[in-house]
C-alpha cells in the first residue's frame, strides 16, 4: 500500500516529468559524500561507544567491549545531569528565545529602515556571527573581564566579575550576540518570500502591523521558524565555544554538555566514553527535534 503510494507520487512529482532515475542522479553526489564522510564515521563512533577504547595505553591496543557500561556511568553521574540541565537552559535562553526573538525583531524592523541604519546594524550582527570562534572567545573574555573589562568601564562597576558571578547568564547573552545573525538572515529571506500582495490586501482590510504579523506573516513563514529553531537549537546544544571562554568555571557552573565531554573524556582520551555521551546527546537532540515538530504541527 505505502509502496504503491510512493510510486504514484514519485511518478507525478519527479523533476523531468516522471524520470525517476534523473531524480536519483540529483541526490547521488550528496548521498555519496554524506555516506562516506559522515555516516560511516558516525557508525564507527557509535560502535566505539560500546568499548573502553582510549587513544593511548593498553585499551588503545586491546579495546574491550564493555556494552552499556559507558552509558550507565554517564547517566548515573550527577555532573552529567547538571550539565544537561545547564545545556537545556542555554538552548532555551539563548537560542529558542534569544536568537529567535532578536533575529526576527531585527529582520522585521530593518525591513523598512533607512539604508544606512540597516547596513550598520546588519553588518555588526553578521560580523559577530562570521568571526571565528577562537577570536570571539577572546573578545568576550576581554569584554566581561573584572579588571579593565569594557562592560565594567561603561557601567562604572569596576572589579565586577561577570563570568564568575553569572556564568550561565553571561553565556546566554554571549550566545545571543554570537548567533542572532543566522536567525536574522533566515527571517529576512523568509519575509521577502511572503508575497507583498498578501500584506497589501491585509493592510487594505484595516489590519494593524501586529495583526499583519500574526495573521499573514507568521503563518506564511511557519516552516522557516521551525527550521530556524531546530538548527539554532542543535548548534547551540553542541556548541563548544563556552569551553574556550570559561573552561566550565567557576567550579563547573558553566559546564554545558560539550564542555562536560571535554573535561571528563579528554583526560586520558577516553574515546569510548566520549562516543557514548555523543550518542546520548544525539538522542536528546532527537527528542528536542520531535518536540518542535509536534508543537508546530499542533499549531498548524
Amino acid at each position, binding site marked *: 500500500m505505502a509502496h504503491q503510494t510512493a510510486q504514484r507520487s514519485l511518478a507525478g512529482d519527479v523533476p523531468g516529468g516522471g524520470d525517476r532515475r534523473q531524480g536519483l542522479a540529483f541526490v547521488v553526489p550528496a548521498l555519496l559524500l554524506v555516506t562516506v564522510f559522515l555516516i560511516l564515521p558516525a557508525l564507527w563512533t557509535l560502535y566505539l561507544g560500546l568499548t573502553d577504547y582510549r587513544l593511548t595505553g593498553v585499551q588503545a591496543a586491546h579495546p574491550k567491549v564493555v556494552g552499556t557500561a559507558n552509558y550507565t556511568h554517564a547517566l548515573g553521574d550527577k555532573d552529567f545531569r547538571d550539565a544537561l540541565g545547564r545545556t537545556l537552559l542555554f538552548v532555551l535562553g539563548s537560542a529558542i528565545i534569544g536568537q529567535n526573538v532578536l533575529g526576527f525583531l531585527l529582520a522585521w524592523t530593518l525591513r523598512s529602515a533607512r539604508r544606512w541604519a540597516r547596513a550598520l546594524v546588519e553588518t555588526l550582527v553578521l560580523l559577530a556571527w562570521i568571526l571565528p570562534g577562537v577570536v570571539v572567545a577572546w573578545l568576550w573574555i576581554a569584554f566581561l573581564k573584572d579588571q579593565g573589562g569594557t562592560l565594567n568601564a561603561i557601567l562604572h562597576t569596576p572589579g565586577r566579575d561577570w563570568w564568575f558571578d553569572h556564568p550561565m547568564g553571561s553565556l546566554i547573552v554571549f550566545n545571543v550576540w554570537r548567533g542572532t545573525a543566522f536567525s536574522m538572515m533566515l527571517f529576512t529571506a523568509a519575509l521577502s518570500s511572503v508575497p507583498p500582495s498578501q500584506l497589501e490586501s491585509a493592510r487594505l482590510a484595516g489590519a494593524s502591523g501586529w495583526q499583519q504579523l500574526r495573521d499573514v506573516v507568521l503563518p506564511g513563514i511557519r516552516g522557516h521558524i521551525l527550521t530556524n529553531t531546530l538548527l539554532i537549537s542543535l548548534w547551540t546544544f553542541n556548541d563548544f565555544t563556552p569551553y574556550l571562554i570559561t573552561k*566550565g*568555571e567557576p567550579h563547573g557552573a558553566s559546564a554545558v554538555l560539550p564542555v562536560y565531554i571535554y573535561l571528563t573524556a579528554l583526560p586520558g582520551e577516553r574515546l569510548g566514553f566520549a562516543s557514548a555521551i555523543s550518542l546520548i546527546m544525539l538522542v536528546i537532540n532527537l527528542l528536542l527535534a520531535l518536540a518542535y515538530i509536534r508543537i508546530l504541527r499542533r499549531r498548524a
Partner: protein
Amino acid sequence: MKITRMAALIAATGLAVSGCSGGASGGGGTTIRISANSVKGGKNSSGAEWITDYVIPKFTAMEKAKGKKVTVRFEGTGVDDAPYKQKTALDLKTGGGADLINIDGIWVGEFAQAGYVKPLNEVVGAQVDRWDGLQQIPGPVQNIMAFDGKKYGLPSGTDGRVVFYNKQLFAKAGLPADWQPKSWDDILAAGRKLKSLNGVTPIQLNAGTAMTEATTMQGVLPLLVGTGHEIYENGRWLGDTAPIRSVLDLYRQVYTSGLGDPRLQQNPQGRDESFQRFSKNKVGILLESDYFWRSVVNPKGGIDPMPDRDKDVGYTLIPAQSPGKGIRAQNAVSMSGGSGWVINPHTRNASLVWDLLSFMGSHDAVKDEVQRSAVGISPRQDVNAELLGGDPLLNFISTKVLPITDVRPGLAAYPQVSTALQKATGDVVAGDSVDKAVKTYQQNLTQAVGGAGHVTTG
C-alpha cells in the same frame, strides 16, 4: 552536465594537490621527517629555529661529507599539548607520522602500552647503548624517556620546581631576603605576615581544573612528596589516605583564611593572572617551575617581564611538610618533567634517524640549543656545567633541585588521576570540607583506574 563539471573540478583539485605535496624522496636521496610541538614565531620558537637553522644544515652537511644525500624536513606546530598528543598518537597508530618525534616524557608509558613506540635498541639496535653521550645524561634524566626499565627515547630537557617569592613584598612585610622555609608551617607563617600588606595575595598555590596539569605539578604532587609519599606507590594509586588528606588540608588553610585568592583558581585565565599579579608585586609566594623564571618574568622576552628580576625575585627549595618528612627522608622536595625524542618504529631508515638523533644529543648541538634558550636545563651534564653558571636559577635547579626531585608515573591512567586530584583541590577551594573532597576524590580515582583493587585506602 553540472555533475560532470563538478567531478572535473574535484579531479583538478586532486591533481593540483598531489602535484604540490612533494615526493618523499628527491633525486635518489633519503628524506627524514622531524616533528615537534614548536614553531618559528610561535610556541617554542627557539626550539624550531635550533632544528631548522642548526641541526638540519649541519647534519645534511655531515652526511654529504660521507657521500650520502639526505634531506631533513621539519614538521613543526605550536599548539596546545592535548591536540599535539592526539595527532601524534593517531600518526603512530596508523603507521604514518614523522621519523623522529618529540613527545612529553609523561606520554612514554601510554604510548608504549599502546604499542605506538618501541624501545630504542629494538628500533635501532645495540649501537644505542654504545653511544658515548649516555654517560653525560644522569640516570634520573634518562628515565624521563623510559618505561618499565627500557629506554624509549632520548631526553631533550628537564625542569624543576621551586618556591618563588617577591623580595620587595618580603621586605615590606619584614621577612628576610634570603628566606628559607623549613616546613609548610613556615610558608603559612610568611603568608600571614604578607596578608597585612594591602592588595597583596600572600600565596598562590595552584588549584582546580582550570589550571589543568599546573595544579598537579605545581601544587598537589610537590606537596604530596613532601609528606613522604608518591601518588603511585607499590603498584597502587593513593586514595583516601592521610597524606592526601594533609595535602588537601593545606589547601584548606591557604584558601579559607585569606592567604590565597579562591577566585583566581576558578578563573579560566587564573594562571596567567597570577603571573601578572606576581610581576606587579601583588603576589608574595608562588610555586612554579623554572619556566616561570625563563619565560614569564624574564626581562628579556618574558610575557610578564620584571625589569629587575634577578634582584626582585627570590627562590628557595620546596620544604617538606616538616623537616625530614619528605620522600627518602628529605628536608626539601621537588617534581620534574621533561620531553624527549622517540624514533617512529615504522621508520624505514632507523639507523640514519639514530645518527640524526645522536647528533642532536651531542655536546656541540646541545650547547647550541642551550645558547639559543631553546631548552632551559639540558640533559647533558657537561653542557650544563659549562653554560648554566650564567643563570643563577637554572644553576640552582640543576645542582640543588635535580638531585632531590621526583617524577610522575608514566601510566595511561595518570591523566585521569591528575584530573581527579585537580577536582579535589577545586572542591576544597570552592568551600567543601576536606573530608567531603577526599571522598569524592576516592570515587573518581576508583573509577579512573579501574576498580578499588588499584587504590590504596586508609
